[in-house]
């Protein structure tokens, strides 16, 4: 296999990968593979010309955002509307105005019986089927808050394991291992080194609420005890 065939193959692979990511991920995909440009919108790939190393538009779909960092096609999970964007995360679907266009299944709760289940919440249908009450109108249900879903629980074992870490570096590695972001790890390290939350917020120039929200699960799990 010669070099150009290999690059063509890579470009095809990128196109397939982009298609599989379509509608969900704002992850940046490459706009060039080897000697080929690749359009992030339609997947067309073409040879890079010396006379025009940065073409303004894709020769196939004519898109001018073909190489923008977050350029991609999005399919709304609620109404199926397709649109092109180069924004990291558009606010809402242009057609149904849904803010959850990138979440396939939503957790919903029935106002009548309190049953919680996952539903696609199709924009086109007027009713949803509650597992307990049967078909009900959309007014009879509400969406369970996403934030509550993703709230990370910290166990007492995790806190004990964290306390066992002898130095700051081990603590940092352990916190990253259990899923803390670099900012959360920094806040927690300072907190466990007996810095007061107000001092942490002032030193890191972050809202005090962020410090409290980060340390609260650890206080629940017993980290507040000396």
């Amino acid at each position, binding site marked *: 296999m010669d070099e150009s065939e290999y690059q063509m193959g890579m470009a095809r692979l990128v196109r397939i990968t982009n298609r599989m990511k379509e509608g969900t991920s704002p992850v940046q995909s490459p706009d060039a593979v080897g000697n080929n440009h690749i359009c992030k919108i339609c997947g067309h790939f073409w040879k890079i010309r010396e006379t025009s190393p940065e073409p303004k538009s894709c020769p196939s779909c004519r898109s001018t955002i073909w190489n923008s960092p977050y350029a991609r096609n999005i399919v709304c999970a609620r109404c199926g509307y397709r649109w092109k964007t180069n924004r990291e995360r558009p606010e809402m679907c242009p057609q149904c105005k849904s803010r959850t266009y990138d979440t396939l299944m939503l957790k919903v709760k029935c106002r009548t019986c309190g049953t919680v289940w996952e539903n696609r919440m199709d924009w086109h249908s007027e009713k949803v089927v509650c597992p307990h009450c049967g078909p009900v109108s959309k007014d009879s249900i509400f969406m369970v808050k996403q934030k509550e879903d993703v709230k990370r629980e910290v166990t007492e074992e995790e806190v004990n394991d964290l306390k066992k870490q002898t130095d700051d570096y081990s603590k940092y590695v352990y916190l990253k291992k259990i899923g803390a972001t670099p900012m959360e790890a920094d806040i927690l390290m300072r907190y466990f080194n007996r810095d007061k939350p*107000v001092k942490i917020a*002032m030193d890191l120039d972050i*809202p*005090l*609420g*962020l410090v*409290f*929200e980060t340390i*609260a699960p650890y206080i629940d799990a017993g980290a507040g005890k000396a």
Partner: protein
Amino acid sequence: MKLSQEGARKGPVARYSDAHIFTALSIIHREGVISRGDLAEELGLGEGSTRNILNTMEGWKQIVIQRKGVSLTPLGRETVESIPLRFVNISNPKYVKGDCQQGILVKGAADRINDGMAQRDTGIRLGSDGASVFVMRDGKIIFPNDYNVDSEDPEFAAKIRSVGIEEGDALIIAGSDDSTVSTIAAAGIGLALI
């Protein structure tokens, strides 16, 4: 200093600000235990907004809500005591507009004050009629830019000293026709300074 995160809360725009949260913490610290209704009245907010503030503070482990009322947790007490702001009772119609005036002492903020206009503007944005700033530099009480209160108005300078101002501190007095508005404005100016 910001207390709450921007964009952390979804839904309609909140009717309260960081100044309300800090004021609520200070009131609970002062009172020990307080009912939600009384707190709402002191903050000049509705019961719904007060409930939202309390829920936020409960999530931050600052308060405990019990049948007898709301009180601070040890972490909440530590927070109030470590924020370098303290409400003080002081007023002077010569320097500040408004019948109801509220002072707030900001520890170590004298260096961040130029002519006091930025603080006055913050106060006005928060609803007060005006706000004045006094700082202690080289042992003297200064009304920016360079009005020496010690020599020009020794009586008021003594009053300022009596609230506990120290070298490098700033005292802000916000005034309006409503004591709640003055308190919130003073807290807002103080938070913007730290």
